[in-house]
């Protein structure tokens, strides 16, 4: 008796809709994302009880635990900070610069940075960790 071999079903996954969803997700991330330019900066923010959630930073200045100053991910000196931020303020009068400083730094390490941002004419947001 001859046994008929069953035909293997030809499975085809419809991948076009998956690609569509993937591209919609890409468009969402492209529009909503704000790239982390400062992920490599090692600092611990100070805590304070009266903090509010802020808009994502358009320009951020960070001072890490070694006192190194970073402006939008690039290492700069406190002296040149005002000259970097001033042109940005001229383009956008409402520019708010987020300043993040390591909590254990002493006055002579953080004050020149705060003063430089203040002198540039930008609005200052001092970032920290909320405390209860």
């Amino acid at each position, binding site marked *: 008796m001859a046994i008929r071999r069953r035909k293997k079903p030809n499975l085809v996954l419809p991948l076009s809709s998956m690609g569509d969803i993937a591209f919609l997700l890409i468009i969402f991330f492209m529009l909503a994302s704000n790239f982390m330019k400062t992920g490599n900066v090692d600092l611990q923010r100070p*805590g304070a009880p009266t903090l509010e959630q*802020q808009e994502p930073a358009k320009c951020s200045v960070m001072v890490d635990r070694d006192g190194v100053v970073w402006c939008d991910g690039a290492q700069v000196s406190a002296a040149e900070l005002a000259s970097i931020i001033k042109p940005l303020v001229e383009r956008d009068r409402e520019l708010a610069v987020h300043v993040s400083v390591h909590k254990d730094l002493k*006055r002579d390490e953080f004050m020149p940075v705060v003063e430089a941002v203040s002198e540039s004419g930008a609005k200052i947001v001092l970032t920290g960790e909320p405390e209860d």
Partner: protein
Amino acid sequence: MKSKKRASEGGISPDLTSFSDIANLLIIFFILTTSLVRPFGRRMDMPASAKPPETRQQDNTPTVRVTADRLMLSEGEGNEREVTMNELRADLWRRNFPSRKETERAVVVETAPEVTYERYYNVVTAIAAAGGVVALMTE
């Protein structure tokens, strides 16, 4: 005739596997590099320190002197008293800065060299939360 029709129906289906692979790689890239988290902080009214604080001329401008272990609040000469952080906050709230003119909202902050940023941060955010304007004192 029949065979012709069959040939036209055999549609072309492009291989979309690599296409979706690229799309997924892009998604992973965006997920890893993006930051959707909104930071916490305090927006400061901090006029440029290059300008001398005119309000310093007034005797009754509140001045907070911050050292490593003490907070001294004064208004005018010989009127200095030690306060805790909570007392400072309460004092600043009592002043009702938002109802005052901008020139009368200044609080001078004098910081000693040994003061850490965390201590300074607590003082200036307390002033900003109460509606005050931080006037930086430089030597």
